[in-house]
């Protein structure tokens, strides 16, 4: 059964379909949420509420986009909701952002992104977090601000700086 069919079955209140969707998608959603938040308690809550929300909102899934993207859109917003309530330390900005890229990784992903990967990796951690939240997670300026624990205005100015730095690195 495809993911789309599973979501349709969930809209028809099938518990088994939700269990199967969880089995397929919860692992990567968990890993991805953990890349955004270091607190496992908050991550667990966000993951739980994601699937409760899927149960309630399955009828609103129109099947035009990928089910995976739809799920992540719900999950990241659940996480932002939790972070907003708790005001914890902002997302993980750890050393992996500043770490040198291994040769294997360059070979593996180099063809896909070329110098863009290098330009992204050379950004400062704060700027890269903003690029990740707005470009990769597709969040609005305001949502990205909540995720990162910074004002929306700062998200905008950092995005402008990131764009300039990356353009400078590419030319």
């Amino acid at each position, binding site marked *: 059964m495809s993911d789309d069919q599973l979501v349709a079955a969930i809209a028809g209140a099938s518990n088994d379909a939700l269990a199967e969707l969880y089995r397929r998608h919860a692992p990567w959603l968990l890993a991805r949420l953990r890349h955004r938040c270091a607190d496992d308690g908050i991550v667990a809550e966000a993951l739980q509420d994601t699937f409760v929300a899927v149960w309630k909102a399955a009828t609103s899934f129109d099947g035009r986009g990928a089910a995976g993207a739809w799920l992540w859109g719900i999950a990241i917003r659940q996480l932002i909701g939790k972070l907003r309530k708790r005001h914890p330390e902002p997302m993980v900005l750890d050393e992996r952002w500043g770490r040198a890229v291994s040769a294997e990784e360059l070979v593996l992903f180099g063809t*896909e992104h070329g110098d863009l990967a290098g330009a992204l990796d050379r950004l400062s951690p704060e700027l890269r977090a903003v690029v990740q939240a707005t470009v990769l997670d597709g969040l609005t300026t305001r949502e990205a601000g909540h995720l990162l624990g910074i004002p929306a205005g700062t998200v905008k100015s950092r995005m402008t700086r990131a764009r300039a730095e990356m353009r400078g690195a590419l030319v």
Partner: protein
Amino acid sequence: MSWHLSPTSAKDYIGQRHSGSTVASIESHLPTCGECRRLIADVTTAANEPLLDQVWQRVTIALDDVTRPWSERALTRVGLSPETARLLGATSRARLSFLLAMLLTVGIAIVAAHGGRDAEFGAFLSVAALGPLVATALAFGRRVDPAHALVTTTPTSVWRIVLLRTAASLIPAVAITGLASLIVRERGWVAVAWLLPGIAMAVVSLALSIWVPIEHAALGLATAWIAAPVVALRPAGELIDTTAGLGQLVAIGAATLAALVITYSRSTLDFRET
């Protein structure tokens, strides 16, 4: 996509050991690639991640909560166990038709207050006293009770169920009829003269249900209650006086007797087959 995750790469992603651009590549790939998601799932399972099972448990509990009717959720919130809430919730659904009947009682009360005549007030007292009886019959009757199958299979003491459901039926019945009494309050305390006979009939019907189906017991009692003044050919005014005085004592006596019968036979009490 020209590439897929290797098992090593999946492990490094879960362990957060990739660089920012690699994470970006993987994360833009994952939402559209079922193959790589399966790899992440396999690696996570192999690593014995306990959080996945824990979260799933909590999801099922939360869903149970979502799918329960609001009445049961409200009861759990004020501190009742989910099982008790389910029992009371089912009882309250059985009471829906009964609530409509209670509204009729209120209607008669309004007419009685408006007309101010004894006949209408007598009718109000007659109908009002039937409230608790009908509520009890609806709460326990097999034919009208959607919770009957639930009760039959619930491993709780039958005695506890009887007490719980009697309370759940009587309290709203008495409350609504009590409100109706406010409408005819100029009659003084006689306006609540229905209360004791009403409760007495409810308890007596429960006691009778040891021997006969509770619907039959309730029907018999209700018929007797309505028929008594007709057979006695007493004017309504006189009837009200009787109900107010001697009637109250008779009601207390009957209720006590019935309660004793129920308590005495509680070990053999089996409402499952009434």
